[in-house]
């Protein structure tokens, strides 16, 4: 894969100009390189928070009983 391809993993989304301007002011001197950097940071935080609401387990009830048996034998529970 060329270097150009590796770096082009971005797409464009639109936000209101006024919000863009607010963010630009907000991030001055705060370590964010650009409005895009800030928006990416905030969105990742929000998305991660929503994703935390569901959780899947890879084991069945029978598996769980086996696991508990071992944990009891080892004194963990």
């Amino acid at each position, binding site marked *: 894969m060329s270097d150009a391809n590796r770096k082009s993993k971005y797409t464009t989304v639109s936000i209101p100009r006024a919000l863009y301007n607010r963010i630009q002011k907000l991030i001055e001197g705060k370590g964010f390189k650009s409005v895009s950097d800030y928006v990416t940071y905030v969105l990742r935080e929000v*998305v*991660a928070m929503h994703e935390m609401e569901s959780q*899947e387990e*890879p084991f069945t009830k029978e598996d769980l009983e086996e696991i508990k048996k071992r944990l009891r034998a080892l004194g963990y529970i």
Partner: protein
Amino acid sequence: MVARPHGGRLVYKVVKDSRRERMLREVEELPRIKIDRNTAVDLENIAHGIYSPLTGFMTREDFESVLDFMRLSNDLPWTMPIVLDVSREDAEFFDEGDLIAIYAGDTPLATMVVEDIYGYDKKEYARKVFKTDDPKHPGVDRVYHKEDLLVGGSIELLNQLPNEYERYTLRPIETRVVFRERGWRTIVGFQTRNAPHIGHEYIQKTSLAFVDGLFINPVIGRKKPGDFRDDVILKAYETLIANYYPRKSVVLSIVRYEMKYAGPREAIHHAIMRKNFGCTHFIVGRDHAGVGSYYGPYEAQEIFNEFPDLGITPLFFREFFYCRRCNGIVHEKICPHGEDARLRFSGTMIRRHIMEGKAPPKEVIRPEVAETILSFDKPFVE
């Protein structure tokens, strides 16, 4: 609630008995590659979900995304390449799409569906992950000794490596049950490669004051001469817990893992591993996963600012020490006294005492812990 696994689902790629026997017969017919112990440990960690959401060794897309962005190609935080290297000669025997067998010695460990075979630049790998291409860096040296090609694809584990510490080994699927059964909602993970001194104890107890449970997770892996032996570390921790910890609030279990010494990047990786064990918090001390002077003392803490979506909360600590004037264990943020009043928890000093058959000062190491260590004929790796 116990932390959600990284990526949302705990990976479990251990083949169950019903299929295992058949697969063990079939692997004999498959193209095979042999891997070293370090790669075999990574393989097991993938299979048991310690590296969730990875279901196998990285394909090129993930590998390059990790190097460039410290994220998997699906945007999840991930900082360390988890790769399987093969020689060009071995790669002659299979193609993308093939099912191959992975062996350690004569033991078939796993099968793998080959999704990708690709070349890579070792210097670029080193510079991006270790921030140096100096071959004296132990992690860089290991990269330079890798074979020229990487193979990516999902795995299924058929056999485990022998484990002399099986009794102390809990996998994420088990720790999650332990934490839930104990009613813990918040758990702090502590990684260690050392017998505990009082500085460790204070960091752990300070953290425990804010959460329900403490998960002490010693790393068992290759060690260098002069390091504490693994069995010594475990016995020392058992002694410490028995004498000084509320036992209902602590779980001690090991993880097999080969340190890469990648400093900040590896600190993130360690946090992700503990998230998969179910931890909601992770302790990051001074120079976490560092070696020599390749990283700044608190660089491994600062990198967490770049990952608002990591899903585990880091707890940052300065170096604790004993202050004669404070008459207690403190750190530089809360102690106004000079260096002459401070007794540091120096590994060299502890080692010197132990090698002379003497217990280190009680301000540095608990007498019971010292006694446990001294009960071993040879507590250090030779």
